[in-house]
């Protein structure tokens, strides 16, 4: 694994912005780093919608949101002086329930040595009921460093 290949796990939260800003601050204009921003799309379940049209509209909205987030986080990195050529973005659809698992699979397949993830800070009850992407990444990540930004 190449520690200088950095994967930023993105979502629409302020924590993701903080994670990107942190990476930008640490790496700055250095040229020997590669930074990819990954947005894992997990569409809301069809069961939540009364009809297929409403569901498709929501999925379109989610795809647009992903593109906006990726573009916004790229800008954050650029503003911190990271060369545009070192930044790439990608959105992927989660195959199962777990966003953390999708992030880890992508990290393994593409040889990222560092994962950066924001943490929203959930209560114990919320963690039990809903789980936590950042905690799961910390727990299951192998052969890489994990930066958790709060």
């Amino acid at each position, binding site marked *: 694994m190449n520690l200088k290949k950095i994967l930023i796990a993105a979502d629409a939260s302020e924590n993701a912005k903080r994670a990107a800003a942190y990476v930008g601050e640490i790496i700055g204009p250095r040229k020997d780093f590669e930074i990819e921003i990954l947005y894992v799309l*997990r569409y*809301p*379940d*069809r*069961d*939540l919608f*009364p009809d297929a049209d409403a569901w498709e509209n929501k999925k379109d909205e989610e795809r647009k949101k992903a593109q906006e987030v990726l573009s916004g986080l790229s800008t954050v990195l650029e503003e911190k002086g990271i060369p545009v050529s070192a930044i790439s973005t990608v959105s992927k659809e989660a195959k199962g*329930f*777990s*966003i*953390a698992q999708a992030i880890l699979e992508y990290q393994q397949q593409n040889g990222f040595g560092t994962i950066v993830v924001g943490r929203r800070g959930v209560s*114990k*009850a*919320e*963690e*039990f*009921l*809903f*789980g*936590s*992407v950042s905690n*799961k990444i910390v727990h299951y990540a192998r052969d890489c460093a994990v930066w958790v930004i709060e």
Partner: protein
Amino acid sequence: MSHEVKELVKRLRPSLSLGEYGKIFTDTTSYMNISYGDVIEIDNQHYLVLRDEAERSFGIEDPKYWVKRCIHLETGERRILKLVFHEKFMLKLGSLEIPCYRSPEKEARILDLVRDDLRFMQGFSRFDKKGNIVRIIQVIKGKRLDHHVFELEVPHRDYFHEHLPAILEKFLDSCLAIRYLHDHQEIHGDIRRDHLWIEHGSGRYRWIDFDYTYEFEENPFGLDIFGLGSLLIFLVGKQIYTLSNLASQGFSPDTAAAFNQGDFSLLYKNRIVNLRKLFPYIPEKLNLVLMHFSNRAEIFYESVDEFLAELEPCIKEIKKS
């Protein structure tokens, strides 16, 4: 139209006496207009509506206008017809509120998945003439498990040693039923005490009502697992204990004073989870399983398997003791 219903009832159920004869509905969209004496016709079968179902809590009846108690005229058997009603509301779970969705499609899909699996209520779905999915559900003749347990007139110690092992054996099977749903990427969604019934005659435990669903989260099964844990806490205690009901159950003020924040439920702040402080004969191992659902917990069960791996040996231990 009344005459037509009268003829239909006479032809199919000659012994039935009915005060009012209503209309025949082949389109269930306006479920509020379907009431006593009406007949819902689906797939050439006829269901005579007796009343709307109601949910009772704290002595208040909350009518569910989209759920009809019926008689299937062709067989004379009772059926529950659940009509299409999409709803989003905030579900309050102790201190948390989460958006919850009622999904007829989800319940219909699970009814197909669990066909002939008697750990669940049974039924099937059909479309009415307007394309609304209608769930046609068999009525379970039985009693809520929690009522059965609460009404056993034995002291807790006797209940714990003589009744609980058999109850937990069956509860284990109910947990495996939930695992079956999870294995098929489904959730029950509303595991609570009044949704597990004991069937008269067979004594089988059966889950009912699985039309709730949620926005997916990182751990989609957490809610179901927490529901199983809360049910287990009830079964082990034979009831729910809170600081305010300890005195009425014969516990001393010293016992009440021994509880701290970590001894209560992670979600329901007044519910005692550390039951060993009340009943010292509860084995440490079983109490530790309960404590996974307490404020003190640092590690949570992520799957039914993890939960059962720790619960199953406890049942053997209680049996031996």
